[in-house]
């Protein structure tokens, strides 16, 4: 295996001696990055809302845990969800939200996917009936309507992936103009968890006759709750 690596790298180095590579530079000096548009937060929020709506996602605003719980309970009722997967309370950016939801009779389903292959499949099949997933986004991107989710302990991937409805909570203070701006400010973002994902609205496909259809593999409904 190391022999293959050495041969490939030797072949690459050999190729580089003769490669015709227009516009290749040795150093990375003079790098250009798109300027930050320095827009006020309200404008960013407006852009985010417009972008999300164009992707068939929904934006809500809530100032308290009970207001957020109202929205979530409403979405759950309208989509027939009777239980939900969720990130742990301290990762939702809305303290006390899970206990408010519990007091309204919406039970949280917890899981820890086992390593054993058979157990793993059985455990995941059991999550199949859960109707809603709740996450706390690390950031929101105004130019494209995407939210950024970072995996970690108490922050599983499946909550935003398996149920047909995904509700994400994000703070207004985490609104960024674009991905380039966010990554510039947080250079080590990609290494924050084993999975960092941008989610821009509901899952979709246009493979059959270019006809847009939502909810092919991921959630069909995406709601973002913006909190102070």
């Amino acid at each position, binding site marked *: *295996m190391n022999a*293959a*690596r050495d041969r490939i790298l030797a072949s*690459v180095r050999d*190729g*580089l001696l*003769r*490669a*015709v*590579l*227009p*516009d*290749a*530079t040795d150093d990375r000096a003079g*790098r*250009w*990055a*798109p300027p930050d*548009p320095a827009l006020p937060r309200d404008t960013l929020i407006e852009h985010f809302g417009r972008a999300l709506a164009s992707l068939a996602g929904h934006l809500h605003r809530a100032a308290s845990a009970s207001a957020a719980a109202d929205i979530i309970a409403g979405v759950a009722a309208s989509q027939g969800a009777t239980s939900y997967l969720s990130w742990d309370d301290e990762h939702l950016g809305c303290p006390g939200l899970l206990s408010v939801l519990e007091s309204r009779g919406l039970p949280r389903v917890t*899981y820890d*996917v086992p390593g054993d*292959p058979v157990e793993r*499949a059985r455990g995941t099949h059991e999550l*199949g009936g859960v109707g809603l997933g709740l996450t706390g986004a690390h950031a929101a991107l105004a*130019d*494209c*309507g*995407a939210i950024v989710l970072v*995996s970690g*302990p108490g922050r*599983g*991937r*499946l909550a935003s*992936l398996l149920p047909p409805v995904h509700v994400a909570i994000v703070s207004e203070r985490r609104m960024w103009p*674009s*991905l*380039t701006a966010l*990554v*510039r400010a947080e250079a080590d973002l*990609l*290494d924050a*968890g*084993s*999975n*960092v*994902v*941008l*989610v*821009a609205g509901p*899952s979709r*496909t*246009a*493979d*059959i*006759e*270019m006809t847009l*259809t939502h*909810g*092919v*593999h991921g959630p069909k409904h995406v709601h973002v709750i913006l909190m102070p």
Partner: protein
Amino acid sequence: MNDASLAFHRRIDEALADGALRRALALTTGRLAGGRATAMAALPDAEALRTEARRIRAHTIAHLDRYLDQFTRAAQARGCQVHWAETASDATRIVTGIARENAIALAVKSKSMVTEEIELNAALEQAGVRVVETDLGEFVVQLAADRPSHIIAPIVHLSRGDVARLFQDKLGAREDEVADIPAMTAFARRILRSQFIDAGMGISGVNLAVADTGSLCIVTNEGNGRLTTSLPRLHVAILGLERIVPTAADLAVVLTLLARSATGQAVPVYTNVVTGPRRRGAGPGASPGGEPDGPDELHIVIVDNGRSRLLGGELAEILYCVRCGACLNVCPVYRHIGGHAYGSVYPGPVGSVVTPGLMGLDDWSELAQASSLCGACRDVCPVRIDLPHLLLKLREQAARRELAPLWLRLAMPFFAAIATRPALYQFLGSVAARIARTASDEGWIRRLPGPFAAWSASRDFPAPAPRSFVQQHRANKAGTGAPPS
């Protein structure tokens, strides 16, 4: 013409005769190209971003050995197992080996061009592993035992009726489950969801890898990329060795252009970045209390398969490509013949360079002729690859290696001998013009003899003017010519 060239021409004729295919191609490529134009126009600094994206890709390729090494170390430090494959068969042997060691019976796969290139599915099936394609289009392609015909719209050549029949014949779908496209999509979701959960292995390609963190970026709209890399215990990622960028900031720049160029979206629905297997307490997979889900093992197979050889030459610029497919949608040739006619996994202008670049010119030299060199591909390329220039280089290589047709190889030195002797050129030119005028039909030459017959079959050529340019120029200088019209 050799066999490969004859087969290529036969496929072109078949494609041109397929009216349904041509309507579907016009619709799809038109919509994708229009979407791209709108999305790029809406982007402030679009041209500066393209310049920067090109610079990032050029720089990375120029230091590819260093970035591959850095990527490998970073990925290993985060618990990935990195494998190196010199050839397609090395790559498939590595993947089937991983499957065998882990007693895998079922694998799910997220759409990937490089796995098509190395024909991974066939190798896995042969090793007793059932592979299920999970991108809706690729799933249909697999059911039909067909091949994808567009990099990002694999079933542009099939209608909803075709898909409905496949679902009924192969999967026993009921009438109401294929009543319309949303019903068919819901049906596929249901079938594939349980495959995702039961699969022991998830196989993905990689859109771009990030050297400094060992991260893999995999974009999808459907979410199958996330399920493939999250549900099965093993994730095996197949990485073409050139698909690297140095940092997250570089990734962000290229991502800003990737989906806009591909489909006209600002971002794909899911931009999924994976950095190592799931992180469990003390060590990878060691104890609960860490991340509650994600794969316990992540294998990365770095595939060369001709890329390092391609690097050492005048086609190396094609390695900047990020596989958005924008060049297909604007190509007048692709738009008429579609992907299958190219006979290769990689169609369109990019494929006409990549395929001979990776597989050699012997069987693929004809692809470089399937271009009008109009430059539309270069105009839309997010990293500004000079595709017409590379196609010309390929034609040049083919000519040098005597892969061009015999008559052309004989005719060009003959033409050169005439063209470098002005008196002879003018004399023969006037003779040819007189013959051509006599043979013309109302001022048009509709048919040419011999080797020019094929060229003139679909083109009319205006008959030569009564006086040649040189004659007219002389007359003008002498003050006796008619004023130029």
